[in-house]
């Protein structure tokens, strides 16, 4: 594959970037229902269709549940599809999310992360995505606007791969990235076509054909159900390597890559490591650099793939470190620690028994600030030196 040419650089919001990213992948059926902070994305896609920039069926659905069901029906019929949502919208799709993955429908969904029901909160947080973790989807979290663009393109390459065929959710922090305008290189559509071209060379996937006795979503017989579940889990396992492979190919073609399942930042010689995800990672990297200047051997792991959980890559990055601090932008009901921290702790046998400190921060539009991250690094450093430490810290509650 030859390299792509340089695309046009535009200064646009994360929502607009997501709309451009989806449009460049030429979805044939689009269904979306507006919700803060995603609405601009639903509008922009409708405008692309209205202007003839995107040749697609745009279905103005009456709710998010229908948005997911429309793209699911179209995907089962053979279409390339896209939808987008956030928060309560994602919650309202819950039954259809599980059908989508159970049907092995290669849907791409863009989710602008936001807090979820319980307490009404029109504010940022990753609780929506976290709460959908057992729906069988691939879930990826990105850090900035350029990564939104690039990850959407990579998501199609992943979801529609014949060895994967799983719905894929691209998540970015609502409010922070959704409304943040950054300079983003918009790839040329011919180059996106080129990057996605290998999908067309695959054998055609199974689809619904009128007149043929093909059933989708059939009642599984006992063993049929187990077999479908087993194959679904096997496909999720294959996602891990495929994400790394696609990231590498994307880098060779477009000149940008993100580390695949996780990004390791200054971890090689680090004694302690921070684990972050999403838009707070940029701030955290700045603090890591400053602490390095001050002689603290700290590194950072950015979690990009949340489902499947990148266990092997995390073990390889974290093994032998003296202490780890995990910042979660969501909570895990029933556990003290944050959700990503809780899952990371399941790897203790492989990483080694070292202090793993959980931090809950950035809920409901509260910023994860430079002083917050400095504090995390200081406490994790002290824990690494054998000082007593607190298992879980809700940073905003202590300020």
């Amino acid at each position, binding site marked *: 594959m030859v390299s792509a040419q340089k695309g046009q650089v535009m200064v646009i919001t994360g929502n607009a970037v997501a709309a451009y990213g989806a449009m460049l992948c030429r979805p044939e059926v689009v269904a979306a229902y507006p919700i803060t902070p995603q609405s601009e994305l639903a509008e922009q896609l409708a405008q692309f269709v209205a202007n003839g920039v995107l040749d697609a069926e745009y*279905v103005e*659905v009456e709710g998010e549940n*229908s948005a997911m*069901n429309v793209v699911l029906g179209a995907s089962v019929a053979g279409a390339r599809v896209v939808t987008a949502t956030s928060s309560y919208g994602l919650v309202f799709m819950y039954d259809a999310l599980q059908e989508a993955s159970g049907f092995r429908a290669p849907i791409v969904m863009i989710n602008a992360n936001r807090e979820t029901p319980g307490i009404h909160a029109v504010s940022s947080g990753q609780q929506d995505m976290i709460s959908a973790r057992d729906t069988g989807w691939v879930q990826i979290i990105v850090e900035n606007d350029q990564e939104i663009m690039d990850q959407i393109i990579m998501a199609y390459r992943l979801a529609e791969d014949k060895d994967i065929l799983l719905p894929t959710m691209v998540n970015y922090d609502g409010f922070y990235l959704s409304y943040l305008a950054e300079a983003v290189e918009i790839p040329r559509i011919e180059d996106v076509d080129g990057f996605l071209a290998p999908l067309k060379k695959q054998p055609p996937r199974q689809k*619904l054909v*009128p*007149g043929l006795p093909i059933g989708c*979503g059939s*009642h599984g017989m006992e063993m049929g159900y187990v077999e479908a579940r087993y194959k679904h889990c096997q496909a999720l396992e294959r996602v891990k390597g495929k994400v790394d492979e696609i990231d590498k190919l994307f880098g060779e073609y477009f000149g940008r890559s993100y580390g695949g399942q996780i990004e390791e930042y200054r971890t090689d010689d680090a004694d302690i490591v921070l684990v972050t995800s999403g838009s707070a990672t940029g701030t955290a990297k700045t603090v890591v650099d400053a602490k390095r200047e001050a002689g603290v051997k700290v590194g950072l792991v950015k979690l990009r793939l949340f489902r499947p959980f990148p266990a092997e890559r995390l073990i390889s990055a974290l093994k032998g470190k003296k202490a780890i601090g995990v910042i979660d932008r969501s909570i895990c009901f029933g556990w003290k620690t944050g959700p990503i921290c809780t899952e990371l702790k399941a790897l203790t046998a492989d990483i080694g028994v070292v202090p793993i400190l959980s931090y809950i921060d950035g809920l409901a539009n509260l910023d994860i600030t430079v002083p917050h991250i400095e504090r995390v690094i200081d406490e994790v450093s002290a824990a690494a030196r054998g000082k007593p430490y607190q298992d879980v810290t809700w940073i905003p509650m202590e300020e």
Partner: protein
Amino acid sequence: MVETTKKRNRVFDYFCEEDQFAGGVAWCAGCPLELTARFVPKVLGKNMVFVGTPGCAAPVLHGQNVGAWHRLAYLASVMTGVPSKATGISRYFHRIGLDATVVCFTGDGCATDVGFQPLSGAAERGERIIYLAYDNEGYMNTGNQRSSATPLGAATTTTPVGKMRHGKPTIAKNMPLIMLMHRPIYMATATLSHLEDFAKKLQKAKEKVKEGFVYLHVFSPCPVGWRIDSDKSIEVCRTAVRTNYFPLWEADDGKPRFTVNVANPRPVTEFTKLMRKFSHLKEDGLAELQKAVDERYALIKTLVDANQ
């Protein structure tokens, strides 16, 4: 020996396809749903997709525990997603130039209750799909619980008869009328006692769906839940029409008209006496039901007359 020729039923003239279902499927004895499911593809042709949902149709349509009981393409959905999935399929088929009929096939519970929102949405958008609701007036597959299509006074397992309660306290949603208010390209009611009427409506549905949304409401008594003898279900259908309990009407391009005119409607008690779900009703309860039937009929008649 004298040869006699039995008069051939004209409904055969409407069939373009052989039966798409296997014999001996897992539907209850005497269930009109089975005959409806067999009837629809015979008239529409097999170039179709069924979108179904958990309910009475599911065990056979979805091939529960057997793999396949019919030769049709189908998509099984949860109750909340039927017309939306059909929308996605229909939009994509049209986009790629595939000429096929997409038929949603659900019970009244899905259509009037839990799946109503997407049905209303798809109708309003004018999606090119046929939505067929087989109305057995409750959640019969889960064991005869009430739906919002359950009639006034009917005993179900969630509106039981006891010292304090006497069946369902409210009237059924007038679903055909609600759907007409969405102004679909075609709307009709049908039932198995009037097969030619049903076949004509299916043929019309197949044509009209090329332009927009079609809603068909099919009266489908449940021998088990309503406690009817299994050889009486067609008679119950016929009596429902003759008592105006279930009027047969249609609205082509929004113009309502009766397709079967009942000259001298019989009292609703002729209908209720055929089953035991109303057997607890005393005179006043039956009078209330008659009033509900009359009101519903009068409302439709007003619309029909206004269209003359």
